[in-house]
């Protein structure tokens, strides 16, 4: 594998690295959570991150998104190595994540949740909004149109003015994806996006995730327990067990790997 940080980032080169981890190690109070994890996600890929409970999948996502600081190792986004990664900086670099237990703002409407995602791209300062200048009104109108489009793409337009806490879990999950998509990210990090959904909802989510990649070329890294869904959705599977990568490759190859089967069945070497 080519050392990605030495390549100049080229937008149209599909082999260019979208996000890469270099020898990441992380421990909490003496407990090793991640050990020398390296991973290179190429632009436009859908990577499924799987592994048994406690394997370190969410921790890996938290390192990628700047929420956990690794003890050793580094993260590159678009081929640029970033030290002292912070969540805001990661977001500004075009990497947007969702949360396992939902990252929605409970006291706000669905539309306001999605509009909050636009904060990153706002060019008009708060004094303009304070005085409702023409610039502020124009930007606000454009944001609302874009937010309603994002909601419509996940069939959520009817819920725009509903308080998110009043919606069922599956719908809330969709709202979170809609908000992430409305931020026009280059990379989406999804932590169990299908958890707690019925088959119909799963189907809808899968096509929404796939369309993000197919239409906008968005790179996707997702943690998911439903192996059936991951096998059909992902271009590539990465398997974590006890903080290490034990397999990395095309879904069919990985699914047949004996180490992976052992990890899932619980036989310890």
């Amino acid at each position, binding site marked *: 594998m080519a050392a990605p940080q030495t390549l100049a980032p080229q937008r149209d080169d599909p082999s260019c690295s979208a996000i890469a981890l270099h020898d990441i190690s992380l421990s*909490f*109070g003496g407990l090793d959570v991640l050990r020398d994890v390296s991973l290179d996600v190429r632009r436009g890929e859908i990577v499924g991150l799987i592994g048994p409970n406690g394997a370190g999948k*969410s921790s890996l996502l*938290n390192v990628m998104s700047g*929420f*956990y600081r690794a003890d050793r190792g580094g993260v590159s986004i678009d081929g640029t190595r970033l030290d002292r990664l912070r969540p805001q900086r990661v977001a500004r670099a075009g990497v947007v994540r969702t*949360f*396992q237990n939902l990252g929605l703002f409970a006291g706000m409407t669905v539309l306001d949740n999605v509009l909050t995602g636009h904060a990153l791209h706002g060019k008009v300062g708060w004094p303009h909004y304070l005085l409702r200048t023409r610039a502020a009104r124009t930007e606000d109108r454009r944001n609302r149109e874009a937010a309603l489009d994002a909601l419509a793409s996940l069939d959520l337009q009817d819920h725009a003015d509903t308080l998110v806490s009043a919606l069922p879990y599956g719908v809330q999950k969709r709202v979170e994806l809609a908000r992430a998509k409305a931020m026009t990210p280059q990379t989406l990090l999804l932590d169990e996006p299908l958890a707690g959904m019925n088959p119909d909802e799963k189907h809808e989510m899968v096509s929404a995730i796939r369309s993000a990649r197919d239409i906008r070329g968005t790179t996707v890294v997702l943690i998911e327990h439903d192996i059936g869904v991951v096998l059909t959705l992902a271009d590539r599977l990465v398997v974590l067990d006890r903080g290490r990568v034990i397999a990395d490759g095309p879904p069919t190859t990985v699914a047949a790997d004996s180490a992976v089967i052992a990890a899932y069945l619980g036989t310890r070497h």
Partner: protein
Amino acid sequence: MQFFLEVLVAGALSGVMYALVAIGFVLIYRASGVFNFAQGSMILFAALTFVNLVERGVPFWLAFGATLLLLIAAAFAIERFVLRPLSNRSVITLFLATLGLSYIFEGLSQIAWGTQVHALDLGISDDPVSVAGLSLSSFDIAATAIAGSLVVILALVTGKTNLGLSLRAVAADPLAALSIGLRLERVTVIAWSLAGFVALVAGLIWGARSGVQFSLSLIVLKALPVLIIGGFTSIGGVIVAGVLVGAGENLAAIYLGPTIGNGVEGWFAYGLALVFLMARPTGLFGQRTWARI
């Protein structure tokens, strides 16, 4: 130097009394995750009730028991009508509810017992005594001894017994505690009753020192910086912090007061708490926790 030490030790001794008030918070916080702003008004309520019973000729221990019973009844009522309907609500909502409680306690105490100041004599003399060459108040020493032994008893009760274990289990994970058969309501009532008992003892000592009056209710504001420095969950931390705040406040009043103005002790503890907060956000003995995301 001698004078400096006397100021320091006298401050530290009154700091133990701050700690005594703060322990009432810790008990409730550990058992139900509630930051109980009403702890100060519970002290007022307890002291006023006790002193009025004694003034009406009720014997000491009977008055003590009757006041304690009232506080336990209050614990039941608070659990049933305030905490239970507010379970699963945010910590700030619960805090605001205890602010409401403190208004009720203050209003009730003063409607029932009036607003005049009562003297309270516990039979502890207040004479200067010489300890290791330092001139100290015998009352302060006795109060410290009472407070100290109470602290040891509470630390033992909440640390070693089944009761202590269930108090901590409920605080750590209410759902898990529920699933192994602990009754949340009962644990909450016990914690609030214990806090009521601490309030009664604190009220008697403070009342004997400075009179039973409305200002007892304001001790809560002294206990708050102590809690922040000591951490909300550690009885040991709160004692150290109490001594620190008491000593610092007394030193500041004596040595800083003449330079920057009288009344420094009104805000000094908060300044100290802010310094600690910036340096150690989880308190002296608080544990660093990892946020699960």
